[in-house]
Structures are given as structure tokens and as C-alpha cells.
């Protein structure tokens, strides 16, 4: 068990590419931290620096009580699960799991006990332990990779998109298993993903990276409810948040999307930003279809996607050009070209500065 503390961590690759521009985060003992961000933003780089597979250009990394900047991966007491599993193809499942323990020099009986225990936790049968990795299904390989991490009894687990090679159904199942496992073992974990659902559900805290910078760090619900920047707002939540250029009136009581009715700003308004041009963000699930409401805004429908549980309606407000997605529950009989009365719930408006792209208020 250990805390992982990153202080001013930077990474410059040998080709002078700056991948990480200063990350500070304290991962508490037993905490599950999820790293998300678009492809190429430096998630793997950061994780690999924690693992010791990439050198740390600048900053200090502490695991437990030790600064580990210059320690070998094996001396950091971590275990890592790779995206492609990285199982040794020429070794049986048992040997794959036992390899690290053998190198540690543990007695045979101890190795066997640990492997058997991990196999039991992961529901791998004795017969499967004798197989080669290529004789297993993707989900089973994933379990073996987890097993190899567990048997080491590390103080930190590192995951680099471990579920991205699995099909959708298995991914849901393994996601739950990883969450349960982490909760039961209580091992500090850092998990890289770019899957929305994994990001929202797995971790205690979520860190959004963008081009090597930390955009926001907080609980998933905090990030969902109060995204600190336009980037986070667009990245967290699926389908993505709707954005429209808008203007706040002089008193800061209402907000107007160009050419539309003014919408009331909830919870006391934004007096300090009166008269400002802003970007308004509204999540698709915070738009309602209400026939006959006085404050409804007409929306012209262009496309409808039926998901069964929900219906996604794409279109735009009146004459405005900014695209809009509305998420309605259940199956709806709506066709392209229709005009729908849509109401915006005032408490769920997100207002951003168009220049700094930061959240206002």
C-alpha cells in the first residue's frame, strides 16, 4: 500500500518533443485514479514514467516513502497491465504468473500458493493454468494479465487501456471485475483509458489530460457537473455537450443564443459577467421536450438516432447554425424536418469564456 505523489513531472522525449508539461497529483493510499484524454495527450507517457519504463525529465515521483525517479521498474513495487496484455507467449499461464515471483526468489510452495490464490480470485481453472496464452480467449488473457499483476502483491497497480481490445460485452464485465478487485485488494491504482464509461465509473478521481497538461482533476461527478474548461466539458459525457455562442445580458440575469429567446440564468445569475459574449454549454440530457411551455425554444430536427433506451435527436435551434443534440428517454416517433419545442433546464447551463476557454462562475 502506498501513496503516489507526482510533483512537477515533465517529460521531454529524446527527439525534443515535450509530452508532459508539469503534472502535480497526489494519489492517496488505496485510491483509484483514472487518467483520460484524447489520443496522444500523454496518458501512456505519464503512466510509463510512474512504472519506470520512461525516464522522468523533470520533477519528483514518490511511491510510498521513497523518491523513485532513478529506480528500476522492478524496484518500484508496481505492477502493470498492458493494453496488449504482454503475456509471455512461450510460457504456460502458470509460468506467466509465477515468473516475477521466481525472480524475486520466493520458495516454490509460496509461489504456488500465490498463483493459486490469484487464479481463484480471477476464476481461472487449474486446466487453464497449464495452457499457453494463445489458447485462451481475449477475456481470459486479460485475467491472466491481471493475475500476473496481483501475485506480485505490489503497492501500486498501473493499467494502460487494459480493456480496449475486448468486445463491448466483455468490457462491461471486466470493468466491474477490475473495480471490485481494486476495492477488495485496496491497492493504489492508476488507470489509463479513453472510454467514457470506464472514466466515469471506475475511479475515485478522474484526471483529464490535454496535450500534456492537466485540464482538471476531481471526482467524476464533479467533472461532469462543473467542467472547468471547454475541453473537459466536451470530453466528459456522451453524447458530447452542445455548445453555442451566446451573450449574457447587462444585468447578468439571462443569456441569449444568437437570434433566440433569452434563457434565464439559474441560481442568482452572473452579474459579474454582464454584457459578455460567452460560449454556452448544455448537455443533451438536460434538454427536455415540453409541448406548450412558454419558455420552450423551437428546434429543427435533422436526424434521429434510436438507441432503444434513449433517442438522440440532432438538429439546431431555429435559424442558428450551431448543431444541437437532445437526448430523450424511451423510443420517440420523431422525424427529420419536424420542429420540436425544447426547454433548457436553467440549473444545468455551463458558461465558458470564449478566449480562455475556462468556466465562468
Amino acid at each position, binding site marked *: 500500500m502506498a501513496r503516489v505523489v507526482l510533483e512537477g513531472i515533465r517529460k521531454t522525449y529524446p527527439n525534443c518533443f515535450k509530452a508532459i508539461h508539469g503534472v502535480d497529483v497526489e494519489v492517496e493510499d488505496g485510491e483509484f485514479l483514472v487518467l483520460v484524454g484524447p489520443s496522444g495527450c500523454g496518458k501512456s507517457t505519464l503512466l510509463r514514467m510512474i512504472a519506470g519504463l520512461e525516464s522522468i525529465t523533470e520533477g519528483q515521483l514518490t511511491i510510498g516513502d521513497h523518491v523513485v525517479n532513478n529506480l528500476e*521498474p*522492478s524496484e518500484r513495487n508496481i505492477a502493470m497491465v498492458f493494453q496488449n496484455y504482454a503475456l509471455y507467449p512461450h510460457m504456460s499461464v502458470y509460468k506467466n504468473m509465477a515468473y516475477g515471483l521466481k525472480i524475486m526468489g520466493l520458495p516454490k510452495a509460496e509461489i504456488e500458493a500465490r498463483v493459486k490464490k490469484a487464479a481463484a480470485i480471477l476464476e481461472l481453472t487449474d486446466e487453464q493454468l497449464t495452457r499457453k496464452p494463445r489458447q485462451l480467449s481475449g477475456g481470459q488473457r486479460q485475467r491472466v494479465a491481471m493475475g500476473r499483476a496481483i501475485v506480485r502483491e505490489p503497492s501500486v497497480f498501473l493499467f494502460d487501456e487494459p480493456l480496449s481490445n475486448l468486445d463491448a460485452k466483455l468490457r462491461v464485465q471486466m470493468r466491474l471485475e477490475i473495480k471490485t478487485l481494486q476495492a477488495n485488494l485496496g491497492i493504489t491504482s492508476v488507470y489509463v483509458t479513453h472510454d467514457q464509461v470506464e472514466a466515469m465509473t471506475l475511479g475515485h478521481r478522474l484526471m483529464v489530460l490535454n496535450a500534456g497538461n492537466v485540464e482538471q482533476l476531481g471526482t467524476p461527478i464533479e467533472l461532469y457537473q462543473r467542467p472547468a474548461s471547454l475541453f473537459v466539458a466536451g470530453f466528459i459525457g456522451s453524447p458530447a455537450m452542445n455548445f453555442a455562442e451566446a451573450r449574457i445580458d447587462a444585468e447578468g440575469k439571462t443569456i441569449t443564443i444568437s437570434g433566440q429567446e433569452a434563457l434565464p440564468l439559474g441560481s442568482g445569475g452572473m452579474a459579474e459577467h454582464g454584457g459578455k459574449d460567452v460560449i454556452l454549454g448544455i448537455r443533451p440530457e438536460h434538454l427536455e421536450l415540453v409541448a406548450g411551455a412558454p419558455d420552450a425554444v423551437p428546434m429543427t430536427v435533422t436526424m434521429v438516432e434510436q438507441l432503444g433506451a434513449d433517442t438522440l435527436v440532432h438538429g439546431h435551434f431555429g435559424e442558428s447554425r450551431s448543431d444541437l443534440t437532445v437526448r430523450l428517454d424511451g423510443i420517440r416517433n420523431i422525424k427529420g424536418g419536424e420542429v420540436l419545442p425544447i426547454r433548457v433546464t436553467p440549473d444545468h447551463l455551463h458558461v465558458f469564456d470564449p478566449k480562455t476557454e475556462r468556466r465562468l462562475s
Partner: protein
Amino acid sequence: MLKNVHFGPSVLPFLLVLPQIIVTLVFFIWPASQALYQSVLLEDAFGLKTEFVWFRNFEELLSDPLYWDSFKITIVFSFLVAFLSMSFALALAIFSDRVIKGSGAYRTLLIWPYAVAPVTAGALWVFMFNPTLGIVSYALSALGYEWNHQLNGGEAMALVVMASAWKQVAYNFLFFLAGLQSISKSLIEAAAIDGAGPMRRTIDIILPLLSPTTFFLLVINIVYAFFETFGVIHVVTAGGPAGATNILVYKVFSDGFVGLDLGGSAAQSVILMIIVISLTVVQFKYVEKRVAY
């Protein structure tokens, strides 16, 4: 899935394969059948009388201790050549795999020896090790070692092994390097996290994963040592001293063209043919099965 495309009857396909067929017939099938034919004949040294003797040439050959000596020498020689050139190439490939700067130039340089003809390679080594003129033998004598491969059978063997292995290193290096680069980097990283140092990773992970390449190269190198080292032997030792480096191919030449025992020499060729055919069969049969994982 390959599609079967049917063309109308045409001579073009036959014309296109004709050069290949002619080359095979003239340079392979015809000499091979000649060897087969000669191996059951007994001819006098002047080529005046020829007698059909069934398998007597083979019987004589197999009861000749000199032939078995040559056989043993060939085994030792090819084992040493394969081992030396492969282990050296593997070491180079492992180091080169880690080189980041200038790896292109380094690899290109390493490949050059392969372009050197066997005879030239042999001449090069003979010159370096010449007991009176050679730079290496000069250095050795400065260290108190009198090198003379013209008298010492062991030294002669060492020299032809070195010369033959040197030429093959480049070829092996290329294959090992390709093999190494096909090993997923994350496997090595997983092993590093598991606590295996560079040496241990090489032994536990890299070598087993290279075993298909190693097996392939082993067969190729044995075939090379058996058959393609003629030029080196011819220039460096001519099979001597006292037959110490008289490997089977060289014996075919010296018995047939120098000793003029055409029947016996042809019988030896036939045996060599059988060896190379079986090596090739082994190669094809096991190269896939031998994949250790």
C-alpha cells in the same frame, strides 16, 4: 483465397517459365543425373574403359576410414562454423537492437562481409594469418605464440572456421535483427517490471522467442558449412595439412579432379545430395512446428 483465373490456351506461360526450366535442367538436373550415373560406374584414369559396377563405389567409400575421417571433420567444421557465426551474429544483433543513434550506418557496415566472395574472404584471412607475412601471426608471435596453420591441423581448422563463419555473420545478423524487432517491446517491459535484468530477459524471453529464427538459421548455416565453404577451404588450406580440413565437398573435388577417381567422387556427391535433401526436408517440415510457443 486465391482465385483461379482461366486463360485460353496460350504458349506465353510456357515461354515465360522456359528460362527457369532451362537453367534448372542445364545446371542442376543434368549434373545431378550425371553424378548419379557416374556413381555406379568404374572408369579408369584415362577414361578409356568404363564398367558398370552397381553399388561398389558406395561400398568402397563407406568402408574407407579416410572417408569417415572426412565425415567427422565436416561435422566438427560445420558445427563450429554454425555456432561461431550464429552466436556472434546474435550478440551483434542484440547490441544493435539497443543502438539508437547511427544504427542505420552500423547495420549497413555489418552487412558488407556477406557481399564478399568466399575465395576473396579466404584470401583475406590467409594473408592475415600467413606464418611469415601475416599481421595476425606477427602479433601472435610477439605474444610468444608461433602460428602456422600450414603445419598444425588444429590451427588450420581454426582458420577455415573463422574465415567461413566471418562471412556468414552478416547474413545471420540480418535474420536475428529482424527476429528481435518482431518481439513486442511490451514483453520486454513486462519482464523488466517482473524484475528480470537485461541478461535474464535475454535468456528467458528473447532467446525462446527467437527459437524459430535460430532453427532456420541453424539449418541454413549447416548447409552453408557443408557446401558453400569450398572456396574458403580451397584458398586457405586446400584440405590440408594432412587432410585436417578435408571436408566432404572438398574431398569430392580432390578425389574426383585431382585423384581422378570419378566413380568414387560421384558416389560422394550423391551422398552429399541426399544430405542436403534431407536437411531441406527437415527445414520445411519442422520450421513451423518448432515454433516454441
